[in-house]
């Protein structure tokens, strides 16, 4: 049963991250491959503060939000003045930089050895230790984040985001400060990703840089695309699908080294199949590629 709860917890954490990435990539059309970096910033901030300063979990999560928010702002300020593919490249560069810092600043981040022994979160004197308790703990983040993002996406602010995705020039001609909108949404996305990272650090209780690589960013993007860009519930479904199905590979009699690679192949294959037959994803309303056609007109 714990194994089942474990999968649900992982799905919950990835739902948070994927929903926040959906706000960027799905709603606004900002394809970022730096989301694992912000996820990692949340995880490392939380881990470091709880290990070295012994602060309570809510302070650490908030500190993670603050740290990734500030870093996202500093990163977005210059890079969101670029367009389309160039923006993807800047996020790619940023992802590599953050990974290098985690991997090489040994005295601070533990380098490749990571940070072990992150204590369990304590709420009102109760230590969250069992899988079931953790499942509720994670769910208590997934729900409000879903509701909050839904509210944002459904508002006039969200309407401007969609307009930026569909036709940036039109949004500008309607008097919208498109760059400011993009920076804001990028910062919101990064802070929520960091919440996911904090929860991950608490759950696994050990973090190392390999959990925050570009591969991880691309995996998050796959969840968004397969679940459906521009639809928040799609991101939850996408996370469930992409995490649940490969778990079945465990039950097939297969050496572990092969099974791990099979998973990568499976993700790639699924992405190709979706791109060919259902570019809008499971629940999405917007297909990747269409906005590019328009931009070239």
């Amino acid at each position, binding site marked *: 049963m714990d194994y089942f709860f474990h999968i649900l917890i992982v799905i919950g954490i990835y739902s948070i991250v994927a929903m926040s990435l959906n706000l960027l990539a799905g709603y606004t059309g900002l394809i970022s491959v730096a989301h694992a970096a912000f996820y990692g910033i949340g995880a490392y901030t939380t881990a470091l503060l709880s290990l070295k300063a012994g602060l309570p979990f809510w302070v650490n999560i908030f500190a993670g939000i603050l740290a990734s928010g500030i870093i996202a702002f500093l990163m977005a300020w210059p890079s969101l003045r670029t367009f389309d593919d160039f923006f993807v490249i800047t996020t790619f560069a940023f992802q590599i930089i953050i990974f290098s810092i985690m991997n090489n600043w040994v005295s601070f981040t533990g380098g490749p050895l990571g940070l072990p022994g992150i204590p369990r979160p304590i709420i009102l004197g109760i230590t969250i230790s069992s899988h079931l308790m953790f499942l509720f703990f994670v769910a208590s983040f997934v729900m409000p984040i879903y509701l909050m993002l839904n*509210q*944002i996406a*459904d*508002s*006039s*602010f*969200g*309407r*401007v985001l*969609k*307009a930026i995705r*569909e*036709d940036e*020039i*039109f*949004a*500008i*001609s*309607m*008097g*919208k*400060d*498109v760059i*400011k*909108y993009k920076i*804001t949404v990028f910062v919101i996305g990064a802070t929520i990703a960091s919440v996911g990272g904090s929860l991950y650090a608490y759950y696994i209780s050990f973090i190392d840089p390999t959990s925050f690589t570009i591969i991880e960013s691309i995996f998050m993007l796959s969840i968004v695309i397969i679940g459906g860009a521009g639809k928040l519930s799609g991101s939850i479904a996408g996370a469930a699908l992409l995490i649940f199905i490969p778990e079945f590979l465990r039950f097939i009699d297969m050496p572990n080294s092969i099974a791990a690679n099979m998973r990568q192949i499976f993700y790639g294959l699924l992405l190709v199949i979706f791109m060919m037959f259902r570019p809008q994803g499971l629940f999405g*309303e*917007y297909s990747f590629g269409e906005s590019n056609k328009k931009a070239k*007109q």
Partner: protein
Amino acid sequence: MGNTALENQIKRQSNRRMLELLEISKRFDGVFAIKDVSFSISLGSITGLIGPNGAGKTTLFNVITGFLNPENGTVNFQNRPLTGLSPFKIALSGIGRTFQNLRIIKGLSVEENILLALSEGRVIRSIIKAFERRDSKVEEEKVKELLEVVGLSDKRYDLAGDLSYGQQKLLTIACCLALEPRLLLLDEPVAGIAPEMIEKILGIIKELPSKGKSVIMIEHNLDAIMQVCDRVIFMDAGKKICEGTPEEVRNDPRVIEAYID
């Protein structure tokens, strides 16, 4: 009552220049797309901008609206220079524009397209507003009013992408009007649509000066230009060739030559 007050105001300001272009030049890869173009638009006028393809008409619109920076010259709007302002600020300062290749958000409804222009432009405030309530009553009324102006009231909740080409052109005009501009730059507002729709759009354009708005329109349809414009500017190869009343420009030998070629 309200009308005469507005008319008086228009009269008082009529010597004021709405828009003034001073020796604007713009080059693409060394070739002049616009060369030393100067003209001014007075308040409440409808000016036609004509000329063959590649004459620099749309480039001129892009310079006025800040999407392109000119190498030389200044653009003054209501006696203030627009130089260096970003395009969204120029839009907010009172210059609305439509595009030749129809820019609307096809995946949003007609109403939402208009609300896009009406809604709060300040980013942080708009996020706070997201948690307060839905679109306000004032905006609702404004949408209704604009849809009546362009005659799309029955299409309010339809997807913009499902409208006919002519209706989409009407919608772009409604979006543009939602900004409450003093000056409208319309890029080929009646190109490629049915004759009845042309009459409808021209009817809307003709009404604009009485609401204190000025218009510059690019159009290849000379009959439309003759019908609504009180001044016409003819451009060719990036230069302003001549300017005058529609009659004068139509009878200018250089214009005749360009259109017969």
